[in-house]
C-alpha cells in the first residue's frame, strides 16, 4: 500500500468504468447501444479479474460476453420496436421502487463488504492460477465440471424445445404475423392482405 501503482490506476479505470457502463445500459435510448454498453461493463470486470491474477477467467468472460452481446444486439433488431433508438424513449415501470431497491441492495452489500473483517490471504504470485484451476477442474472437482457440462447440454435441448418453430407451443406460421404496435406500423411490416394469405399456407401442426 505504498504509493499509487499502475495496477491501482488500471483497477480504478476498469472498475469505475464498468459501473459507469452498467449505468449507461439503462440510460441510452438505443437498445443495441445498451447491449454494447453491457459488453463494455463485462470487459471492465474481465480486466479487473486479469489484474487480480485470474487471467483465464477474465479472458473467458470477455470472449463469452462478446458472443452473447452480439446475439443480444441481433435480438434487439429482430424483436424490439425502435431498436435503433431514433426516438427518445423511457420504457420503465415502477421506477421509484426500482431505484430504491437498487440503492438499498448497493448500500447493504457495500456496507457488509466495508464493515466485515475478512481474512487477508492474497494469492501467491508464484503459483500459476490457471494451472491450478485446470488441475482442480479435471481432478477433485471433476464432478462439478461434468455437471456443468450436462446442465449446458440440457439447456441447449430446452432452448431448442422452447424456440423451435413447430411444437406444442404454437404452429409454424404464428411467428410471421406482424406484431401489434401501439402507434403506426413501422416500415417493413406485412400488409394485412399478405398477412392473411400467409396464415392459410399452413404447414402448422395442431395445438398440442
Amino acid at each position, binding site marked *: 500500500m505504498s504509493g499509487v501503482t499502475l495496477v491501482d490506476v488500471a483497477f480504478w479505470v476498469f472498475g469505475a468504468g464498468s459501473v459507469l457502463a452498467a449505468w449507461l445500459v439503462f440510460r441510452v435510448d438505443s*437498445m443495441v447501444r445498451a447491449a454494447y454498453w453491457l459488453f463494455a461493463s463485462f470487459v471492465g470486470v474481465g480486466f*479487473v479479474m486479469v489484474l487480480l491474477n485470474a487471467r483465464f477467467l477474465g479472458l473467458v468472460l470477455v470472449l463469452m460476453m462478446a458472443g452473447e452481446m452480439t446475439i443480444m444486439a441481433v435480438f434487439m433488431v429482430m424483436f424490439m420496436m425502435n431498436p435503433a433508438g431514433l426516438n427518445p424513449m423511457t420504457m420503465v415501470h415502477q421506477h421509484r421502487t*426500482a431505484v430504491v431497491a437498487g440503492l438499498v441492495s448497493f448500500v447493504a452489500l457495500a456496507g457488509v463488504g466495508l464493515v466485515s473483517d475478512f481474512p487477508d490471504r492474497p494469492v501467491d504470485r508464484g503459483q500459476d492460477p490457471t494451472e491450478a484451476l485446470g488441475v482442480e477442474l479435471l481432478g477433485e472437482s471433476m464432478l462439478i465440471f461434468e455437471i456443468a457440462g450436462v446442465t*449446458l447440454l440440457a439447456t441447449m435441448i430446452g432452448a431448442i424445445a422452447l424456440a423451435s418453430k413447430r411444437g406444442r407451443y404454437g404452429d409454424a406460421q404464428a411467428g410471421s404475423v406482424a406484431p401489434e404496435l401501439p402507434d403506426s406500423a413501422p416500415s417493413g411490416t406485412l400488409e394485412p392482405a399478405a398477412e392473411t394469405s400467409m396464415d392459410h399456407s399452413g404447414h402448422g401442426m395442431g395445438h398440442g
Partner: protein
Amino acid sequence: MTLQALLVIAAALFGVGVYGALSQQTFVMIMMGLELMLNGAMLAAVAFWAQTSGGNPKGQLLTVVVMVVMAVEAAMGFALIIGIYRIRKADMTEKLKRLRG
C-alpha cells in the same frame, strides 16, 4: 486494489442490475439487468478468491459455476423471448397480463 474497493464496485454493479431488472419493461433489458447482477456476483467471487483464499482453486471454480449460470440464463431467456413472441406477439412485460398459454 483492496478487497473493500472490489466489493464496493461489485455491490454497485449488483445494485444497477437490481434497478434494471425491476424497472425495465422489455424482456431483453430485464435480462441485461440479471446479467449485471451476476456480473457483480462474479467480481465479488474473484475478489474473495484473490484476496482471502490464498489462491485456493475452488474459488475460481465458483466463478466458473457462475459463468455456467449466466450461459443458462441467457439461453433460456432468449428461448422464452422467442416462444412468447410467437404466441403473444409480446416484447414487453406489460403485454402479458395473464400467464396462461
